[in-house]
């Protein structure tokens, strides 16, 4: 009976979190303007026009957060929002971006591609934000990115998908906070073929994100002398999974599974029912159990199996002072659960991407001298991000150091392989950045701005 409370809805709480900083920020901004004006007028030391310059640059920087508050991405969405809110709060406390306060405006896209594009539109025309960020689900990214490009709206996604680096999107779309699937699976394949086996069955979602896994993992494992013998694509809305398992050949060495959405727990449980304790080696992307407690009944069969993690859920997996700092700021305990409710497990392997992305945005605005959402300033901002090459491990980048390839708008970081041991994840391998990097497939910097 552990399941029922683990994901208590907290919509009101989250929206309260969003409302509050907005109010404070506005008030602070007004106070700032007022104080500046008062100071200038009162002392008479500054020339009259300075007031106006001061006033305009004191306006908050507006960041549109495209949130999966509802729909199949809601669990991720809530954590993405919590992390982004925490990062914005911290940035504001330490002086904001380029001396300006940051105002985060969240809009729900319902994890729906069509609404995603509408949300981008709304950010541009109604809220008049400077930047849009935070989208996770690949189909929403692919649905929204063209509109962002048309509106010349810098659009920072935290999606893992290979769609940014593949050249499929446009010059305004970046993914500087999380490694893409192609790099993740390429760095994972050698370890899998050496330690688990060479004949692999893949179970993956039947849409863009899953296809990245299918295409690039198949290629990577073949390079290692292995082979994907069976592909089991699962439709996005599927709710029962037992019927797929008979298609897994009995002589398969490894089942590679990656699932997302509300059905993930059902998926893993039914796999346990089907196989019991004697199953092929299991290698899962943590997505299959993100936000799920490993102590849930029915998951005992996972003991000894392996998972990819982008960022170890348990604090002993990557014990650094930066991780400690980050965990405390986003309200997550050493087990990767919410401090407020230990039954509520975070999406730890993904949500750091929002944190790191916000610091990349900060760096880009400050380096480029970006002032306001004019085409010229946006172009400067885009070029500033494209000129970045690496991020050092720090409080701003707690997951680890990363390289950034401006031509493909994509960052590359370390990945982790963890084994389930006594119902928790224990890191057994950390990849090098070079394990996953590949020849750029495109060059966005040559595209018009």
């Amino acid at each position, binding site marked *: 009976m552990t399941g029922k409370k683990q*994901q208590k*809805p907290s*919509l009101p709480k989250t929206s309260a979190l969003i409302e509050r900083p907005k109010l404070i920020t506005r008030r602070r901004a007004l106070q700032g303007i007022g104080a500046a004006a008062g100071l200038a007028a009162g002392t008479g030391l500054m020339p009259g026009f300075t007031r106006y310059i001061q006033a305009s640059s004191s306006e908050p920087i507006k960041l549109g957060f495209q949130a999966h508050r509802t729909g199949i991405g809601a669990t991720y969405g809530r954590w993405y929002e919590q992390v982004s809110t925490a990062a914005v709060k911290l940035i504001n406390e330490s002086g904001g971006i380029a001396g300006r306060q940051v105002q985060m405006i969240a809009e729900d896209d319902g994890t729906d591609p069509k609404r995603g594009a509408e949300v981008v539109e709304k950010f541009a025309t109604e809220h008049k934000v400077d930047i849009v960020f935070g989208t996770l689900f690949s189909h929403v990214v692919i649905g929204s990115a063209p509109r962002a490009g048309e509106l010349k709206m810098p659009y920072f996604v935290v999606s893992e998908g290979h769609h940014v680096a593949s050249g499929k999107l446009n010059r305004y779309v970046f993914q500087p906070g999380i490694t893409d699937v192609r790099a993740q699976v390429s760095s994972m394949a050698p370890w899998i073929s050496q330690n688990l086996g060479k004949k692999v069955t893949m179970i993956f979602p039947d849409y863009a994100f899953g296809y990245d896994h299918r295409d690039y993992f198949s290629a990577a494992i073949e390079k290692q002398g292995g082979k994907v013998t069976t592909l089991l694509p699962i439709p996005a809305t*599927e709710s029962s999974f037992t019927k797929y398992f008979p298609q897994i050949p009995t002589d398969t060495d490894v089942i590679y599974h990656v699932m997302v959405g*509300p*059905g993930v*727990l059902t998926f893993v449980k039914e796999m346990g*029912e089907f196989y*019991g304790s004697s199953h092929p080696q299991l290698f899962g992307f943590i997505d299959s159990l993100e936000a799920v407690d490993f102590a849930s009944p029915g998951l005992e069969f996972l003991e000894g199996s392996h998972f990819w993690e982008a960022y170890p859920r348990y604090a002993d997996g990557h014990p650094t002072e930066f991780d400690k700092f980050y965990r405390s700021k986003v309200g997550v305990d050493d087990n990767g659960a919410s401090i407020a409710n230990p039954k509520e497990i975070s999406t730890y392997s993904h949500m750091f991407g929002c944190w790191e992305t916000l610091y990349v945005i900060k760096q880009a605005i400050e380096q480029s001298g970006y002032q306001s959402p004019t085409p010229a300033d946006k172009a400067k901002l885009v070029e500033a991000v494209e000129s970045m090459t690496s991020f050092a491990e720090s409080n701003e980048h707690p997951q680890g150091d990363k390289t950034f390839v401006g031509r493909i708008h994509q960052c590359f970081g370390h990945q982790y392989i963890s084994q389930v041991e006594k119902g928790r994840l224990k890191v057994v391998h950390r990849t090098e950045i070079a394990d996953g990097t590949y020849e750029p497939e495109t060059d966005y910097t040559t595209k018009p701005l």
Partner: protein
Amino acid sequence: MSLGPHLLLAFLEGSVSAFVLALTALGLSLVFGVMRVVNVAHGEFFMLGAVLASAFAGLTGDHTTFGFLLAIIGSPLIVGAIAVAADRLVLRRLDYQPEATIVATIGLLYIIQQATLMTYGPDAHSVAPLINFHLRFPWFGYSGYKLVVMAVAALLLLATWYGITRTKFGLIMRATQFDRETATAFGVPVDRVYAAVFALGAMLAAVAGVLIVPIRQAHYLMGLDPLLQSFIVVIIGGLGSLRGTLIAAFIIGISDGMISVFFAPTLGKILATLLVALVLVWRPGGLFGAKA
């Protein structure tokens, strides 16, 4: 996996979905048969049943059995009450006109779905099953709880069948279905019969939701699939024909299970939809419905 065990698994999976589908579709068929109302919000009653079951499980904590009993009695009652309220406040005021009620129940669908989203939240919640044992065949394992689902669903179907064919309420209901005006003339309180039938239909969906939630999970969007499948079943079986609905539920459920296991789940859905189209072309009244 060799053919024998493969077939067994396909049959088991198909039967579970057939039983659950039969309960849900029976509710839809009853409402249409008696009231001539196409209830587009039917799937949301299914979802409410599941969501309430997860809420009851939350209340009772580790007392799984108690939580399940509470859910299987409490959830349908609450959903039934909501259905009665919907009947009184919406359907009756529209005088049960077929077109108006379709639009009204679409509205009801969104109201229920969004109200659930606002109160229960967007996350999927799991509920522990009543029993936690697994059958271990030599080739694969199977959840024992799924057998419980089949047994309980079979009992409920029998009870409903008995209620409709052997009790006075069933007689009144059938009389209303047969000829509303004559029934009124003979003193049948048609309004109350309508409210009761709408509640019964919703309760059947809700109880199916309660049964399914330990297998799947409770989620505010889970009502769409059972709604579509119920429509497929009801159209193939014949709108308003209870016997047809049951037979169609088992044809669709088991064949879908078989096709899903042996070929691909999407193919199962394609074939079911194709069958609907064929039935609509050649037998618009459904396989067991009155000839149009």
